[in-house]
């Protein structure tokens, strides 16, 4: 394998060739199969090295997502756990019934899941990532860190400035909305989520979900329910949460 080719390919990949050189490089790729095989291998080596750096982080992310989405259906598990045989266990049955009843009474008396706590119960926000590997601006990193550490006041501040330059960044807008919501600026949060919800971005449904959460926080349960019903079932996790919250509200 020629050394010159190696350098030439590297230059092509890093964009150091001029227009003419790029043209002749690409022509050579089409005609010369040995050269094109060399090119493919060299690219794969670069991919390997990039992956080598990032794979541990990616894998742990995928593993934790996997745990959320590859669940055995709940009823199947319960079937296995609760065997019901008749006579022998009647007493145990009675005891567990009484225990359940006692818990129910306690729950009615000191309901820890009252509706004003429902917001807290459902407001768990996923971490965001705004920065690209090497090009992330200091501001984006700051906003990201503040948000992920739940310092919503600081996140709100940084995101506001960041969005002045990057107004199209949908994730940042969503994060700004969440920060506003957590920071007590619920009205502003609602108007941000409405914008996301009416737009056509991938985060549209998050807009819907967060609108519901905003109204929940304001204890406007009817509006919250109305938005919850609009979360489409194609969005599996959000849909599941929305259905559960709907039940809790009824």
């Amino acid at each position, binding site marked *: *394998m020629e*050394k010159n080719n*190696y350098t030439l390919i590297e230059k092509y*990949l890093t964009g150091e060739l001029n227009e003419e050189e790029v043209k002749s490089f690409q022509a050579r790729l089409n005609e010369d199969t040995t050269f094109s095989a060399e090119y*493919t*291998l060299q*690219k*794969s*080596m*670069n*991919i*390997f*090295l*990039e*992956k*080598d*750096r*990032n*794979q541990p*982080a*990616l*894998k742990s*992310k*995928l*593993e934790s*997502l*996997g745990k*959320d*989405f*590859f*669940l*055995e259906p709940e009823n199947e598990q319960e079937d296995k756990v609760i065997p019901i045989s008749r006579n022998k266990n009647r007493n145990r049955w009675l005891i567990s019934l009484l225990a359940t009843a006692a818990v129910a009474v306690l729950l009615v008396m000191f309901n820890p899941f009252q509706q004003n706590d429902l917001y807290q119960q459902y407001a768990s926000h*996923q*971490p*965001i*990532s705004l920065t*690209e*590997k*090497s090009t992330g601006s200091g501001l984006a990193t700051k906003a990201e860190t503040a948000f992920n550490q739940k310092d919503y006041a600081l996140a709100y501040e940084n995101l506001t400035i960041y969005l002045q330059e990057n107004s199209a960044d949908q*994730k940042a807008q*969503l994060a700004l909305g969440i920060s506003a919501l957590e920071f007590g600026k619920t009205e502003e949060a609602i108007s941000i989520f409405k914008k996301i919800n009416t737009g056509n971005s*991938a*985060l549209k449904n*998050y807009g819907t979900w967060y609108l519901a959460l905003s109204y929940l926080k304001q204890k406007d349960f009817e509006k919250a329910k109305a938005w919850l019903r609009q979360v489409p079932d*194609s*969005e*599996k*996790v*959000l849909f599941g949460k929305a259905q559960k919250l709907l039940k809790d509200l009824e």
Partner: protein
Amino acid sequence: MNAHEDHRYLIALRKGDNLLLNELYSKFSPQVISWVKKNNGSMSDAQDIFQEALIALYNKACDPDFVLSYPVGGLIFQICKNKWIDQIRKKTKESEVRILEKERYDSEQPSASAIEEIEEEEIRQTQLNLAFEKLSELCQKLLRAVSEGIASKDIAVQLTMNDVNTVYRRKNACVERWKNLYQS
């Protein structure tokens, strides 16, 4: 070919974008789960295969020439199917495999070449990995440092090499060695 809007998922994989990764799982895992379960697999088989498929996609996400021109869901599903068929082939009877095998080749999908490309890359990556592990520790460190974009003069200091020229020379030698190991 023009990029399909789903190309953003590849960018998300490369960047580790949580929201879009989440979406990949929520949109495309159910189909894989039900297919793997129908074909004698467990939930955790489905999970492993789905994850492997995403990593295979990630490889191509790092390839500057690769443009996704098809919906990503179909690609993931097909890659998962192929992976499961390969696994079953290893442990079960021929007859079962033959039935499944049809699923692999029946469909004349337009995306067949993209799938092939993704699978070829995966094989290349496995072999490159084996070869890389056979390199000396110094070579491994050097190649990693270069790829991270660390300046040659700093690499020289870190790896106690005389000067920048030595770094270049050693790096070229390591790359050659890596290629030879890969091709042997």
